[in-house]
Structure formats: structure tokens, C-alpha cells
């Protein structure tokens, strides 16, 4: 029998006796059940751990390793760009990026750090404050490209005793020549953008990579780009490296040796300074590009990393188009520089011979239209030599009329006009060589004979690039062998020379005329180099018809000059485009300086017994006209 | 407890003659040794191979014949030595603790006044000490230290040689056993 339980009192004086022990009421069986449940629960738990730790340890170990091991890339340095003598045109600069690990930053170190790095402490503290919202393991970027002094400061003070917050990360920065020297030739590298990432050309690159975007940098991007290495590190769940496990070194990009001669390039750049235009210097024997200048230029250094948008806009909207590579992309009327090709075409086709003369009275009428010669009073009786040397337009009107447009086109194309030269630079333009076919294809119109007359003096629809002009004249100067222009030696092996079967006599007559241009009271006596048989041809090309010119006075004539030397075995051919230069003889000194630089350098390289000092040589008498004719 | 241990225990307990020292010498001698280690090296470069704190540790542990005291004494000397150098505190401490323990344990089994045994024990413990320090530096702290065995052997011999007269000097500090 159970006794009634005493009521529970609210006071604390509740005392014994307790509930009497009721053996039968105690659910001992149920407690045993509970114990079994407990044991089952523990077996269930143990089995869970057994599965993970004993049966599948391998799997989870691998997962753990995948969790904690990361490969961090080591950027490979890009290959340097060297000139033909191995001088560095484009180099890399080891630069350092300074980070502040905010995890262990101490307040009282802010001022020493700011002072040491020449930062304004207030501004620095302000920047730190802005970082407050970010997690503290994220380091703060302080400065790029430390100066020597700052670098020394950081190295000397970032030990444990002084300022352990400072972290240096090394990187490489591309360095281009200052003031835009060779900018169009070299191009620039810049961070790859999203649009480029989606093109097949850049498919193997990753976001954040720096790629060549113009010039050599772009054309030879693959060779210049090295293979990035990687560092295997153990990281924590925030990706902070905790320990290094292994390293695969980066393979640096290959250095690229150009055919460019930095001396010539510099002289050409200096000559073009402050002018708009282009200079192309080739070695006609090999097609090697010795110099390639386009002005105005831009500073590729600004492109490295990411260009400032405002600066980029300024470059894009500049009316002088500094980004435009005039040497390959300016398609302009060649003007009188086309005349040597006309002359060669006329001789080769036999429409004239060396005795052919025209009387120039300062103009002539063809097909009912008046065509003027640049010399008001006329040149009088003109033969081929004089017509080239003094650039008589009337003579070439007659020659052009005799040849007809298709013959002109045939020889212009033979010289390389109207097609890309195939130089190893991106975005070359091909120019225009007009012909009956060309007009029909483009305008669905017949060719008018009157149009031929302007083409005969390098005007009309005919357009060429400075590179094409140098290539064309170089080929003629070497007697009809056109070597593909190239900037990197190995690339030449792939391209066989283009040869034309020319009568050497005809070639010599044209060259003789070009010799006269410079040395025999021709249009470019300014380019005369005493002691050197420099041949050349000036050109003054109208940009627009005479009517348009009357309206816009700012459209000045382009000055052209193309020259080569020496006369017998040309080693260098230089084409100069001087935009708005008014007259070809103003472009001539530019070419002269470049050629002079070439031969001065050659003399420097092969110092032969100095029979006469330079000062004496420059006063040496002129060789007789025609004395150096070929056999 | 293995059979071997029991046998050892059977042999060991002849009542060891505990040597007593004045309390002051427990403090002054090791301090002097450490001080010597830190400051005398500067004047006399050729004594740099000497490890006086180690010799002191060995001597006192050996003479006191109590592993606990040896361990504690070794730990104190080692820690003091550590705190005056620029490495982590505890490196010498750990090694010297073990040296003190071993020296005291060994002393239960042999005549601590025999010079030959003193020489041998000192030499062995010196080598042990250097190896131990090397192991601590390499495996616990992760420093890359070279183990120069021949040098160690020579230095140990020199230390042991110095130890004999040194111990004799220290013997003067003994209080008569009660």
C-alpha cells in the first residue's frame, strides 16, 4: 500500500521523510531499456566514425589535401627586345609591390611607416580607416615601384624587431624607351581585357595576364611570353599561405633580337621630332628593317598595367592621331617619288628610250584638261635623266599617256605597291594601285584616260605607305630583287626573295636620274652627302584636289623623300614621309641624317687607315657627274 | 617493471652518500658559470668551447645523487642560460634537465669521487648535451644546424679535461655529510 505523499511545501523547511521506496513502482526494466538505447546510440556513433576514419581515410585525406594545397603562379618575366647589336630597347624592371598586413599592424607604427615611405601620415591613416570594413587578413596595398630609398627602408625595417607589418612582393614591369621612341615599332603590353579573352588568339591566357597589344610586342607575343611557374603552398581557409611545399620555376620569355639598328632609329626619331610623318629604313639586300619611325608618338610606358582612361581618351581624340602607325598604315599619294617606277615601266615596256625627250613649258593639256608642271617656267627640253633629277611633271604626263593605266599598274604592283609587304608587324595596310579592273570592281565604271595622267605623277587614286615606298625603291636599286621587310632575322628564312627580270641598263638609267636628284642640281641637293653616292627622289603630294585646298589652307602638301646609298651596291634605303612638309626637299635632310648615321657607324665598325680625317673628307671635291656609272 | 629493472633496483640501493653543499653555493656557482659563459668569452676567445654551466650541472647533480634535484637544477641553469641568449627559451633548459637527471641517476651507481669516472661521465654527457641541443634545434624549433661530430668530440674531451680540476675546486665547497 502506498502512503499518501506529503504535500510539497513552499517553505524551505521541507524535510524527510521522502517518498517511501516503492520497489515495484521503480521501472528498473525501463532503465535497462534506456541503457540499451544508449548503447545502440553509441554504437551508431562509433560506426559513423569508423566509416570516416577507418574505411574512407584515404578519400578524406585527399580531400583534406585538396582543401589545403594551392598552386600560386610565379609570373614569368617577358623576353627583352634588343636591337641588332644586342642593346636593350625594351627591358624589364624588377619592381616591388609593398603590402601592409593589417593583421599585425600596430597603431604606433603608422607614423614610422608613413614617414619612411614618404607618405602623408594623415592620408595614410585615412586609407587604413577605409580598409576597416574589410577583413583584417586582407593586406592593404601601399605602394608600387618603390624608389631605392624606400626599398632600402623597407628591407632594413621589416624584420621582427621593427616593422613586421611590411610585406614585399616582387613583380616585373616592362620598360620602354622614353618619349615614345620606337613606340609604333615596339608596341606595348597591357592587361588583357574581357573582349580579348574571348578571341581564339588569346584563348590560352588568363584574366590579369599582360599581353602585347601592338607592334612587335603583339606580333611576337608568344615568343616573348614565358611559361609561368608555380609555387605549391599550404593555405588556410582564407587562402593565406602558411607554408611552402614545392616550387616550379618560371621559364622566362625569349629575348627577341630585332634587325633594327638603334643608332639609326634614334637619329630618325630625333629627325622627326616635332613633325608628323614616318621614316622607314631598310637594308635592300636582306629586307631587314633598320629603323621604323612614326610620329607623333605616344609613351608605351603608360600602357603597362592599365592605362589611365583619361589618357587613353586623349590619345584617341588627338587630331594628330599618335596611335596611328604612319610607317605601315598611312596610305598616301606618293607624288613624284613614283616617277622612278614610271620611268622604269616606260623603259621596260619600250614606250620610250633614252633618247626620248619632251619639251616642258610649265604645263600641258591632256584630254581637254590642263595639267601643270610644278615649275612654272617649265624645264625646257627634258630627257629621262633630267626629268627624274628635276622631277618634270610634263615629261611623265607624256610617258604615262603612252603607257596607259594598266601598264602603270603592272609595274607599280611589281614594285610592291597595292599589296602588303608582309612585314612582321600587325595591321599593315596595302595602299591602292588603280587600274581599269580596280575601278570596275570598285566603282563599276570605266577608266578614263584622263585619270591616267595624274597617276603618272603619283597622284590620283594611287596611294602607298612609307614602308612600301622604301621596299619598292630598294628593290629597284638592287636591280629587281625585292626582299621581304622583316624585323626579326629568323622570319626572313621563310620568305623567298621576289625577283623581276629587269634590264640592268634600264635600271641604271633610273638610278642615274635619282643620283642627279641629290647630286646634280636636282630637287634634293639638301640631302647631298659629300663623299657618298646618295641617290634619291623627292615627292610633293597633294592631299586633296586644288578646289578643296582653296577652302582649307591647313591641308598642306605632304613631303616625301626616298633615297638609297651607295649608288652601286645599295646597303640602305630610306623612305621619309613628312606630313605637311610642303616640299619634298624638306624631307630629304631627314633621310640624309639617317643614311649618314648608317655610314658613320659602319666606319666606326671597320676603322680603316684614316687617309683623310673626317673634316677633310667633307670638303673633298664632288665626283664628276656620271663618273661612277656602272659598266 | 621488468625483470631487468628489478635487478637494477636490487643492486642500486646501497645508501648513496649524499654530499651536501652550502645553500649559497647552489646559487652562486651556477650564476658564476653562466656569467663566465656570457661575459668572459668576450675577453678570452679561446675558451669558447668551454661549457661551464654544463659542467656545473653535471657536478651538482652527480654529487647530490637525487634525480629530482638534478633535473630541477639542470632546468634552472638551462633556462637561465637560455634567457641570456637570443634563441627560444627552453632549448638549453630541456637538454640540461635531461643531463641533470641522467647525471644524478648515474651517480647512484658509481663512485662519484673517482676522477676517471668523472672524466668519462662528463665526456659522455657533453656529447649528449650537444646532440640533444642539436636535436631540439633541428626537430623542435626547425632550425637548420649542422652537427659537427669531430669538433664535438674534441670539445667534449677538452671539457672533460677541464672538468677534473674544476670539480676538485668545487669539492672544496662540500659540507661534511651528516
Amino acid at each position, binding site marked *: 500500500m502506498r502512503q499518501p505523499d506529503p504535500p510539497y511545501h513552499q517553505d524551505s523547511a521541507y524535510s524527510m521523510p521522502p517518498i517511501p521506496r516503492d520497489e515495484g513502482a521503480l521501472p528498473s526494466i525501463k532503465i535497462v531499456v534506456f541503457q540499451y538505447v544508449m548503447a545502440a546510440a553509441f554504437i551508431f556513433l562509433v560506426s559513423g566514425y569508423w566509416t570516416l576514419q577507418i574505411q574512407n581515410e584515404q578519400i578524406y585525406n585527399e580531400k583534406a589535401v585538396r582543401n589545403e594545397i594551392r598552386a600560386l603562379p610565379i609570373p614569368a618575366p617577358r623576353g627583352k627586345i634588343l636591337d641588332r647589336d644586342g642593346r636593350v630597347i625594351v627591358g624589364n624592371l624588377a619592381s616591388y609591390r609593398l603590402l601592409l598586413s593589417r593583421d599585425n599592424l600596430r597603431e604606433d607604427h603608422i607614423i614610422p611607416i608613413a614617414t619612411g615611405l614618404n607618405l602623408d601620415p594623415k592620408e595614410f591613416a585615412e586609407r587604413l580607416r577605409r580598409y576597416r570594413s574589410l577583413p583584417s587578413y586582407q593586406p592593404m596595398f601601399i605602394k608600387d615601384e618603390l624608389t631605392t630609398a624606400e626599398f632600402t627602408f623597407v628591407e632594413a625595417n621589416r624584420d621582427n624587431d621593427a616593422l613586421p607589418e611590411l610585406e614585399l612582393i616582387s613583380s616585373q614591369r616592362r620598360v620602354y624607351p622614353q618619349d615614345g621612341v620606337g613606340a609604333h615599332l615596339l608596341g606595348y603590353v597591357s592587361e588583357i581585357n574581357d573582349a580579348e579573352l574571348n578571341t581564339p588568339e588569346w584563348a590560352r591566357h588568363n584574366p590579369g595576364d599582360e599581353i602585347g597589344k601592338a607592334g612587335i610586342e603583339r606580333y611576337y607575343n608568344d615568343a616573348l611570353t614565358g611559361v609561368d611557374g608555380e609555387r605549391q603552398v599550404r593555405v588556410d581557409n582564407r587562402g593565406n599561405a602558411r607554408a611552402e611545399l614545392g616550387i616550379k620555376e618560371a621559364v622566362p620569355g625569349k629575348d627577341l633580337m630585332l634587325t633594327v639598328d638603334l643608332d639609326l632609329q634614334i637619329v630618325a626619331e630625333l629627325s622627326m621630332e616635332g613633325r608628323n610623318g614616318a621614316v622607314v629604313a631598310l637594308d635592300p639586300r636582306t629586307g631587314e628593317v633598320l629603323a621604323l619611325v612614326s610620329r607623333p608618338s605616344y609613351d608605351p610606358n603608360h600602357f603597362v598595367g592599365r592605362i589611365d582612361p583619361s589618357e587613353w581618351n586623349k590619345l584617341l581624340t588627338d587630331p594628330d592621331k599618335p596611335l596611328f602607325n604612319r610607317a605601315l598604315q598611312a596610305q598616301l599619294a606618293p607624288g613624284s617619288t613614283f616617277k622612278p617606277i614610271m620611268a622604269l615601266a616606260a623603259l621596260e615596256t619600250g614606250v620610250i628610250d633614252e633618247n626620248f625627250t619632251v619639251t616642258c613649258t610649265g604645263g600641258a593639256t591632256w584630254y581637254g584638261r590642263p595639267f601643270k608642271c610644278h615649275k612654272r617656267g617649265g624645264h625646257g627640253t627634258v630627257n629621262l635623266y633630267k626629268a627624274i633629277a628635276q622631277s618634270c611633271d610634263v615629261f611623265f604626263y607624256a610617258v604615262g599617256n603612252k603607257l596607259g593605266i594598266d601598264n602603270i599598274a603592272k609595274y607599280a604592283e611589281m614594285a610592291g605597291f597595292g599589296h602588303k609587304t608582309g612585314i612582321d608587324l600587325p595591321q599593315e595596310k596595302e595602299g591602292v594601285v588603280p587600274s581599269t579592273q580596280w575601278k570596275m570592281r570598285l566603282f563599276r565604271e570605266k577608266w578614263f584616260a584622263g585619270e591616267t595622267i595624274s597617276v603618272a605623277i603619283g597622284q590620283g587614286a594611287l596611294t602607298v605607305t612609307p614602308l612600301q615606298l622604301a621596299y619598292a625603291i630598294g628593290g629597284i636599286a638592287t636591280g629587281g630583287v625585292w626582299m621581304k621587310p622583316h624585323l626579326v632575322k629568323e622570319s626572313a628564312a621563310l620568305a623567298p626573295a621576289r625577283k623581276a627580270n629587269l634590264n640592268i641598263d634600264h635600271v641604271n638609267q633610273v638610278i642615274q636620274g635619282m643620283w642627279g636628284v641629290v647630286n646634280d642640281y636636282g630637287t634634293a641637293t639638301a640631302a647631298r652627302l659629300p663623299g657618298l653616292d646618295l641617290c634619291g627622289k623627292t615627292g610633293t603630294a597633294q592631299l586633296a584636289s586644288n578646289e578643296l585646298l582653296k577652302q582649307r589652307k591647313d591641308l598642306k602638301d605632304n613631303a616625301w623623300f626616298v633615297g638609297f646609298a651607295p649608288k652601286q651596291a645599295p646597303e640602305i634605303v630610306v623612305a621619309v614621309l613628312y606630313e605637311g612638309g610642303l616640299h619634298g626637299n624638306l624631307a630629304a635632310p631627314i633621310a640624309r641624317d639617317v643614311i649618314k648615321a648608317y655610314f658613320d657607324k659602319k666606319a666606326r665598325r671597320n676603322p680603316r687607315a684614316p687617309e683623310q680625317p*673626317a673634316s677633310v673628307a667633307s670638303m673633298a671635291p664632288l665626283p664628276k657627274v656620271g663618273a661612277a656609272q656602272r659598266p | 617493471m621488468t625483470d631487468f629493472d628489478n635487478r637494477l633496483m636490487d643492486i642500486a640501493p646501497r645508501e648513496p652518500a649524499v654530499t651536501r653543499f652550502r645553500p649559497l653555493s647552489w646559487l652562486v656557482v651556477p650564476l658564476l658559470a653562466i656569467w663566465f659563459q*656570457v661575459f668572459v668569452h668576450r675577453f678570452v676567445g679561446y675558451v669558447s668551447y668551454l661549457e661551464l654551466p654544463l659542467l656545473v650541472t653535471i657536478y651538482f647533480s652527480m654529487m647530490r645523487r637525487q634525480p629530482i634535484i638534478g633535473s630541477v637544477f639542470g632546468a634552472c641553469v638551462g633556462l637561465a642560460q637560455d634567457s641570456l641568449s637570443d634563441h627560444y627559451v627552453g632549448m638549453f633548459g630541456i637538454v640540461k634537465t635531461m643531463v641533470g637527471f641522467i647525471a644524478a641517476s648515474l651517480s647512484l651507481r658509481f663512485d662519484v669521487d673517482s676522477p676517471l669516472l668523472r672524466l668519462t661521465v662528463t665526456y659522455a654527457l657533453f656529447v649528449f648535451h650537444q646532440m640533444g641541443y642539436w636535436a631540439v634545434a633541428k626537430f623542435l624549433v626547425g632550425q637548420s644546424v649542422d652537427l659537427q661530430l669531430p669538433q664535438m668530440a674534441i670539445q667534449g674531451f677538452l671539457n672533460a679535461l677541464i672538468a677534473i680540476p674544476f670539480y676538485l675546486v668545487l669539492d672544496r665547497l662540500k659540507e661534511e655529510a651528516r
Partner: protein
Amino acid sequence: MESFLARFRHITVLLLLLMAQLLLLAYQVKTNQEVRLIRIWAVTAVTPLARAVESVSVYWNNVFTTLVRQREVLSENERLKGEVSKLRIENQYLQGELATADRAKVLLAFAQTIPSKTKAARIIGSGTGSNARVVYVDRGSADGIARNMAVVTSKGIVGKVASAYPTASLVTLVTQQGFVAGVVSQVSRVQAILRGTGSDLCTLDYVRNPFALQDKEWLYTSGEDRVFPKGFPVGQVRVTKKSNTEFEFKVQPVALDHLEEVLIVVEGIHGAIPDPAPAPSQEVVILPPPPPAPASAEAPAAGAEGFGSTDADRLREKYRKLGEAQGHTYGGSPGRPPDFNKAVPSAQPKPASAAPGKPEEGKPPAAPKEPAPVKP
């Protein structure tokens, strides 16, 4: 349990001691923090003794040297007249006094010649490890010494204060591994970073222009590390490897032999540190930047070569000067063509009238102006 403890008492105590120290060690290794408190006790406890003994030792050193010299003089005097001997002895004695006083005097004089404010300190101890390159000096934070202060002697730089305790400071020497200082060479003004390696020789890193740096050149502190004031000698360069691509420079610090007294540079504290750290030794001292190098002949050249330039820039500068020297405007009006083989006008222009054709400095003479070079 009790019997267990009693039986294994020895080994338990040993294990406990070892475990405790292991924990201590693990704590330090894991956190990379020192047990600073223990060290402060130890250093503060030992340095007074060291100081006392040091001064006694200096005294005895004087007496000892005097004795030695007296004996020398006596033996010499046996062959000389007795009367003069007394004077000689006195003379010798005075000389001896002078010699010992010399070092301190030199240091004092030196301290007065340098612009920085310094405190003289005496070296009272070295690190305990056999290859530790640290020393203790007898000035501490109580004397105004703070971490990162430069330590120099009249011979050159010694090291910098690694930690300042109340009565003493720990100085890391130039040769200690991880030590870095900015240096500049005396002649070629090449800047570099000096690194301690833990051996007797330091190495040079980040040498700006390794080609220009010559063997045996003296290095001075450049001040750019903001620790060492500019202009203290460091040591002589030894070029141990030099090829087109690889360079290796070693430097033997000059000031580390027979270190007795040093100067700690205390002045030059740039700007007050706002929050005084809990311990006075926690300050970091930053010197103001070194003054710019005096305008010298090479200064503009250095500017042009500046940071990150290529050969193209140098060549352009050369041609520009060439043009200027000859009054030639590139691509400009017709006139006498330029001569690109003329020597580049240097910083110290030679008289313009010097025969231009004359060969100079082993350069090839000006090129002959022949008609087209003959081809083979």
C-alpha cells in the same frame, strides 16, 4: 595512485619538467613570441654584475699592461744607464696610460665630429650561442636607448639596437643573419643593400649598377634605411664573382674587431610616436630621409639613367648631345652634315678647338669619308 606517484617520482618530475619546457618552447615557436618577461629578469639580474666586473677588469687591465711594460722597460734598462731608466719608466707608464685612454678619446672626438647626437656605451657581454652575433651594451631604456637605434664606432657601423632593457640593450651586429642596411659606394656611388649572413662576411644585395661597383671600394651608409645616418663607413667591397650576368659582392665589416666602446645614435628621432607603447623599449626610431646628394657632375647623369631606363634612352641622350655639339638640328635645314663619330661631349668638355680628327682615348679615329665602301 599515490603508490604509483611515489614509485615513479623521479621520472614523473623529469617528465613534468620536460613537458613544461616543451610547452614553453612550443608556445614560443608557435606564436613566434618571446617570453620577454623572463629575459628582462635575467638581463636585469646579470648586467649589474657584468658592469661591475667590467669596470674592475678595465682597471686591472690597466694595471696589468703597466706591469708588463714596466718589466719590459726594466729588462731594457739593464743595458742602459740607471739614471735614465727612472725617467723612461715614467715615460712608458704615461704612454701606457695614453694608449688605454686613446680609444675612449678617439670615440669622444669622433662623437663630436658627427652631426648625430650619440651616447657612448660599453659592451658588457655577448650572446651565449656560439654563432650568435649579438652583444649587450651597458645602456638601456633608462638612458633613452630605444629599439632600432644605430650603433657605431669611429671605424664604422656596428649594428642596431634589437631590444632595450632598462639597464642594458641587446645589439644585433652587422653580421647577424637578417641584418639589413642601406649602403652606397664611395667612388662610383652605387647603391645597394648590405645583408648580414651569420658569418663574418656580409653580402651586398640589390646592387643598382653592379658593373660600376669596383673591388676594394669603400662603402658608406646611405641613410636610406632610416636607421643609420648617412655617411658612416661600413667596409670594403670584395668582388667575389663577376660575369656578364652574375655578381657577388662580399663586405667585411670594419668596426667589429676589438669592440669595446660604441656610440649609440639617439638623435634623429623623426616625429614623436603618438601612443607611448606599454614598454618604453617598444618604440621604433625612424630617421629623417637623408639629404639629397650634393649636385655633382654625375647627378644629372644618374637622373637620366634613373629608375627603369633602357639603352635606347641613353643612346638618344648621346645623339642629342652630339647634335648640339655640332650645331646640327636633326632632319633640319641643309648644311654641313653631322659627324656621328665625334666623341660625345663629356661632362668636362674638352676644348672645342682640339683637333677633331685626332684619335682620343683609344677610340677609333673618325671615319674616312670615301665614296661608297668597296665591297669585297
